[in-house]
Each structure stands twice: as C-alpha cells, then as structure tokens.
C-alpha cells in the first residue's frame, strides 16, 4: 500500500544503507566522543551496536537519523552524502528511517492509534487509507485493545510497542532502535527481538544499540562495538 518511490540516484548506487567515513563528533567545544569511525551497513543487514554506557551509542544513532551533525568526516545515507543534499532530500530520507528511542517519544495528548499514525499523517496520507493498516499492526504488536488509550495510561512495555509500531508503520528501509529492551523484562525483550527479526526478513535494515550482552547472543547479526570513542569489529571491509 505504501509504495516507496526510489530516486534515480539511489538506484544507481550500491546497496549501502549507511556509510560513515573517518567520522568525528564532539559536543560544543568538548572532546571528541567519536573519532575516526568507519562504518557501513548493508541493505538487509541486522546490526547490533554495543558498548558500555556513555560510550557514544546514542550519539552515533542520532547521526544516523540526522538528529545530530557530525563534526568531521562523511555520512552517507542511502547513497546520499547528507552534508550536500537539499532539505527536501533530507525529508525523504527521514521518511525511510524508523526510529525507536529509549524514552519512546510518544505525544501525550494523542492516543496510541494517533501516535502510531503520525508518520502517515505527517506525509499527508488520508486517514481512511491507513486506519485498517494501523489496527492490524497494533493487533500484531499486542495493543489491539489499547488503541484509544493515552500514553500516560500505558505500561513501559506497551509504550515501547507503540513506539515500535510507529517506527514500522510507514515500512521504513532502515530501523534504528536505541536500547529497545531497556525497560522490559526478558520475555518481552525476546518478543520484541522477534519482531525486529521478522522486519529484517522482509528486507529492512536494522540497527539496534544495546549494552545488554545477553540480547546479542544467539542472533546472527553484525556486532559493532564502540570502545574508546571508535568502532571496532566493523564489517566495513567485509562488505567488499
């Protein structure tokens, strides 16, 4: 139903979803939190970003969804160097990325249904065209009977599932999740992970930041580890 229009540039380029080259990031005049990061996420890959708390995982994700600007180096998303593209192109890239953050970022005065509908509403979709899709998706993530609830009445796990539903409703090409299992128990985190794996099977690239070593185990995924401000174990070279 939500067909993506691929621009000519993107077709011409390879299947790299995210590429960082010699990237550096600092906040204000502080020290570099990330330096010389080289990273490449291929289309359809499943990636974990690990590292201790404060290592810079969230910051790296922010760079991926254009919430932050790098201090130096190159970031390319879907084959576009984001420092040289128009605002319009940035909007269309943003629409291809689904983001799930630790604090869920749900809008308090909107119901679960309305929160999940946001990306579609923002891109001008007609309500009657997406109502059924959202109901199905909410059914699928187990929020079928909470559609009219306001976020403040939801449990942590329910909020998380609402946030996930919102991130995947527009069928993004890349899903970025920051500590998605941070607020839920082990059973729930297994279920959530299964959801991501299912999304991945249908071709979506996944990038999940976590400091939970247990989560990473037993899943066939790339593991990117941040240590001392730089990335190790990257698959940057293996992609060639």
């Amino acid at each position, binding site marked *: 139903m939500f067909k993506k229009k691929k621009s000519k540039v993107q077709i011409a380029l390879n299947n790299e979803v995210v590429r960082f080259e010699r990237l550096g990031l600092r906040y204000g005049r502080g020290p570099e939190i990330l330096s010389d990061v080289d990273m490449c996420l291929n289309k359809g890959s499943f990636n974990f970003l690990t590292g201790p708390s404060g290592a810079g995982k969230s910051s790296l994700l922010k760079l991926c969804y254009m919430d932050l600007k790098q201090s130096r180096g190159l970031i390319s998303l879907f084959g576009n160097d984001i420092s040289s593209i128009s605002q319009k192109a940035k909007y269309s890239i943003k629409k291809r990325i689904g983001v799930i953050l630790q604090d869920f*970022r749900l809008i308090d005065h909107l*119901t679960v249904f309305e929160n999940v509908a946001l990306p579609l*509403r*923002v891109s001008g979709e007609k309500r009657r065209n997406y109502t*059924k899709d959202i*109901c199905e998706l909410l059914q699928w993530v187990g929020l079928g009977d909470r559609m009219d609830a306001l976020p403040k009445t939801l449990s942590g796990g329910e909020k998380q599932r609402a946030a996930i539903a919102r991130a995947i409703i527009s069928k993004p090409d890349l899903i970025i999740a920051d500590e998605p299992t941070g607020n839920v128990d082990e059973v729930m985190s297994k279920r959530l992970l299964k959801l991501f794996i299912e999304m991945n099977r249908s071709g979506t690239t996944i990038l999940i930041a976590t400091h939970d070593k247990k989560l990473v185990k037993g899943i066939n995924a790339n593991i990117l580890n941040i240590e001392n401000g730089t990335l190790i174990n990257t698959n940057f070279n293996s992609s060639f």
Partner: protein
Amino acid sequence: MQDKSIKKLTSNPLLDPNSNNARSLVFTLSIVAYLATIALLFSVTMNRMSTSWNSALENSATIQILVENPTLREVQVEITFKNLKENYPNSEITVLDKKKSLDMLKPWLGNFNLPDDLPIPALISINFAEEDNKDLTYISAALKNEGVIVEIDDHTRWSDQVKKSAIALKVGSTALLILIFSIAIFISNYATKSALLAQKNIINILLQVGAKNIFISKLFIKQAGIRGLISGLYGVSLGYFTMVIMSTERMKEVFIIPIPNFYWPDIIYLLLFIIGFSINCSISAGLTSMNILSKKRRRR
C-alpha cells in the same frame, strides 16, 4: 466489531490544544478584539455622524435682515419671506421669533440678560428641499431691487469646520485601529513563540517522523486562526452589545457625546472584522513559526 472500533477512533489535533495557557491567550485576544470593535464602531459612527451633520448644514441657510426700525423690519421680513417662498416652493422656510433669534445669537452675545430694546436682526431659516435649487446668490440682488438688504449665511464656514473635525476623527480612530491590530499581531507572535517552546517535544517528534517545517507551521497557523476566530467572536459580540446598550435612549441622556445608531449592515462589517482578526493572528503565527523553525534547521 472491527468496524465499530475503527469508527470510535478519535482524531485529535497534533498540537496540544490545552497547552500554553490557551485560555488566558483567548481571553487576552478577546479583549483586544473588544477594544478594536469599539474603536471600529466609533469610527464608523463618527463618519456617519459627520456626514449627516454636513448634509444638514449644506441643506440649510440663514438669512439676516439688519434693520433697526421694528415696523420697517417686519415689512422687509414679509417681502423676503414671500420672495423665498416663490423661489423655493418646496423648501421649509421659517421666520424665527425674537426669542429663537436670541437663542441663536447667545453664543456671540453671551448669556446675560439682554435689554429688551436691543436691536436684534430678524432671522429666516431655510431648509432646502431636494427639488429646489440651493443657489442663494441671486436672491440678495433680487431683494436689493425691492429695497431689502439681507445677509446670507449658507453655513459653508461651518461645514468646512465639521469636515475638518471629521477627518481628524477618522485619522485618529484609524490609527487606534492599527495600533490595536498590531497589539494582536504581537500577542499572536508571542503566543506562537512560547507555544513553539512549550511544545518543543511534540515538534521534535514531528520532525523526526519526517514532518516538513511548512507542515508544522500550518498547524500553528490553523491553531492561531481558530483562536483568533473564537476571540474575535467573543470580543466583537461584547463590543457590539456595549454599543447597542450605549445607543439606547436612556444612555443617550447620560453621555454628552452623541451615541451612534445601529444599522443591520453593521453586522456584516463585524463578521468581516472577525475574519480579518483571525487572519491577522494566523499570518503572524505562520511567519513566526516559519522563522523559528528555519533557524532551528540551520543550527542542525
């Protein structure tokens, strides 16, 4: 069952309608709209009043006969009256008696007791009818032939003065209106700025899910427009009500300034005014939000 639950789903506005002291904002804007309404109605009435004064003055004249001998004066008055009647058959021509003449002269002679034998000119007033020619110039010549010397006051001096005051009033009330409208602009700007701050989280979420700046601005434009409409409606209704009360006969006795009369078409002006007020709020909210959002983008 599925369909039923779908129909029940709400569709709230994306911006929180209750945040950012929405009520006090609407209250403040209502007061501004109220003041603007009063100023507007005042200016409309002044305009109307000066037009009616003017036409009253322009359609009338006074003729003085300056003869001291009372007998002679009476004869001359009669001749003049007859002459006027002939030339202006449809107009209202009145010979003022001594008391009325005195009243008319009071502003010049003062209010004290005047001696009875004071030579007072005889006055004839004329209210021109539509059909009659208003030209008085030839009459003095015609009367002179009959031995009557008259002084004609066609009120042009007055009507000039009235015109000048009317222009001054118009300029003044227009300036007042502009001032009030700019206050509304400032309030709307300020409200938009603080709403952008207060709803920063919502805006960030919208930006994150791919909303364009123009999309977010449109939300603010719509919100400000609705608020402008509501407060415009409140303010204008209250203003209208005030003016209606002030124009009742009872109130007319209380106020020194003549109070306006109301006509039906005024309501159309007021409706247009409400729409204008709302558009005014919308435009300023749109400009402010676009400005802030584009600054934010440049920082990123």
